[in-house]
């Protein structure tokens, strides 16, 4: 296909992508928007297949078939709780593709490249390689293949920054001597290594930020690939993707009252070795399933606050059954969702939607916080740090200043939890010792099943 005609194809695709993303502003228009984006992708691919340089379709066909064979099962049969790992994994695929194409470009042209072009290739391959291994690490931590808590050692930030500086120095050196293959391939090696190192000190609770940040890197890598190949559609999508990841990282950081540098270098979530200071100060109050059912059944309004614990025990369907029972008794039911509950942005919304909870019952923090004083019962299911009043009261607490769901303002708070163990931030939760708090110990799913049964009577 002629080059200018191909560019027109790409222009239409770019417009369709933007319209597609715009559709995501409301659940009603989202699917139609995605259909437009799919159309855009189809156009871009068909246009590219007619590219004048392509002479042999065998490897292309093989790649398309193999990619589809891997991609379809990864999308269709993965449980919704595993969506964070899948997302991280797909960032790594995209980054690997970009990195390999960059390496191929360097291999093909090598010494013939001008200093600017080799610089662009260097940056593209660096970003691609570190995003590839970084995302693999993140996926490993989310899947539980690598232990979730931060791994730290002395001088870690210093050594990581030195590696980053070394990579940049190698790229600059390459710009002066484009033919230096040794410099290029050492830079690639360092980038793969760096991706592993910079995820190690980040704890599992910070994963919502890290995934968003890796999303942003994946977008930048894509844009860099567009610069390298002088391909505008890739620059546009890369830029859109990059800003999306960037916005999400900022939102997640704000929801934790932390800065991005603090997430990356802070090794947050290392369990402090001090014993919980609150222990023994106050007794906790436990309640039985029957008492909880009695309280819930006689209330007027109930707010459920889900957290990662709900995802772990796959309790979302059982929570909705309790909610259905309550609604049949005329109780108003809502869900309060903190932005960093779960392991990726919007994680809890997806799980509850999967359990057939209508989206107009899902409230974010700003919407629900003003409603707690008029709420009779709050049921906390597997959430911990996001409801910890220490964030407001205890200066020096690692989560001090983090905006929380102010559940303690409700008349009664029922906390469904396995044990008194600390949350992912490794901090004791004073909510559990509050006057209005009743602890319902047990597995979330099991407890919800029992609650439904008790409410039936």
């Amino acid at each position, binding site marked *: 296909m002629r080059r200018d005609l191909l560019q027109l194809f790409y222009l239409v695709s770019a417009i369709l992508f933007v319209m597609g993303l715009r559709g*995501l502003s409301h659940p009603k228009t989202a699917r139609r928007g*995605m*259909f437009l*984006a799919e159309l855009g992708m189809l156009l871009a691919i068909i246009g590219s297949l007619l590219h004048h340089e392509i002479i042999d379709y065998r490897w292309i066909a093989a*790649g398309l078939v193999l990619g589809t064979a891997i*991609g379809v099962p990864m999308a269709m049969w993965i449980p919704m709780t595993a969506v964070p790992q899948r997302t991280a994994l797909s960032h790594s695929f995209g980054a690997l593709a970009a990195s390999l*194409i960059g390496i191929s470009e360097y*291999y093909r042209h090598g010494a013939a490249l001008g200093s600017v072009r080799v610089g662009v290739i260097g940056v593209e391959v660096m970003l691609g390689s570190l995003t590839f291994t970084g995302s693999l690490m993140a996926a490993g931590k989310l899947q539980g293949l690598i232990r979730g808590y931060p791994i730290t050692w002395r001088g870690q930030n210093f050594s990581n920054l030195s590696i980053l500086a070394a990579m940049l120095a190698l790229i600059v050196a390459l710009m002066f001597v484009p033919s230096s293959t040794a410099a290029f391939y050492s830079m690639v090696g360092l980038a793969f290594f760096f991706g592993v190192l910079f995820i190690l000190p980040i704890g599992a609770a910070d994963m919502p930020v890290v995934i968003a940040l890796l999303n942003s890197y994946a977008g930048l890598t894509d844009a860099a690939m567009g610069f390298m190949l002088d391909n505008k559609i890739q620059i546009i999508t890369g830029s859109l993707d990059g800003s999306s990841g960037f916005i999400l990282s900022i939102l997640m950081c704000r929801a934790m009252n932390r800065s991005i540098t603090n997430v990356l270098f802070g090794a947050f979530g290392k369990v402090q070795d001090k014993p919980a200071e609150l222990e023994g100060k106050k007794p906790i109050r436990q309640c039985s399933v029957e008492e909880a059912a009695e309280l819930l059944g006689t209330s007027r309004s109930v707010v459920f606050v889900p957290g990662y614990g709900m995802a772990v025990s796959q309790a979302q369907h059982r929570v909705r059954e309790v909610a259905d029972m309550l609604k049949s008794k005329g109780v108003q039911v809502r869900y309060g969702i903190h932005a960093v509950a779960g392991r990726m942005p919007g994680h809890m919304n997806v799980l509850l939607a999967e359990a057939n909870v209508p989206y107009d019952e899902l409230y974010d923090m700003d919407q629900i916080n003003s409603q707690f004083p008029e709420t009779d019962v709050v049921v906390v299911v597997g959430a911990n740090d996001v409801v910890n009043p220490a964030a407001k009261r205890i200066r020096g607490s690692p989560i001090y200043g983090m905006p929380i769901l102010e559940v303690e303002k409700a008349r009664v708070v029922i906390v469904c939890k396995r044990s008194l163990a600390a949350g992912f931030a490794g901090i004791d939760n004073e909510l559990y010792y509050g006057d209005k708090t009743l602890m319902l110990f047990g597995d979330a799913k099991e407890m919800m099943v029992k609650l439904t049964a008790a409410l039936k009577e």
Partner: protein
Amino acid sequence: MIDIGLIGDLYVFVLAGFLGYQVISRVSPLLHTPLMSATNAISGISLVGSLVVAGAGYNEISTLLGFVAVTCSTINVVGGFLITDRILKMFRAAGSGPAPSGGSAKGAASGSK
């Protein structure tokens, strides 16, 4: 110095970034997970660059690397659109009846080519 093509690309990059900021800021927090899978699918556009490298027959190494890149990008395009549709199908308003469960994503399959 720097060739004019690169400057033009920079224009596109910066302006698209601003556009992205505006569009993404309006995305409902309800849909942040499908947003991530959607941008992931769209970023599979690296497929278009990979296709050329895999099919132009520059040399054996390039063809091989291109093949792997085509595979990886295809995983993202196909998988990304399918799972986005699967997630979006689950979101429903009160009173509109239960979401259809399971089944294949008809619309998403069109992006799989």
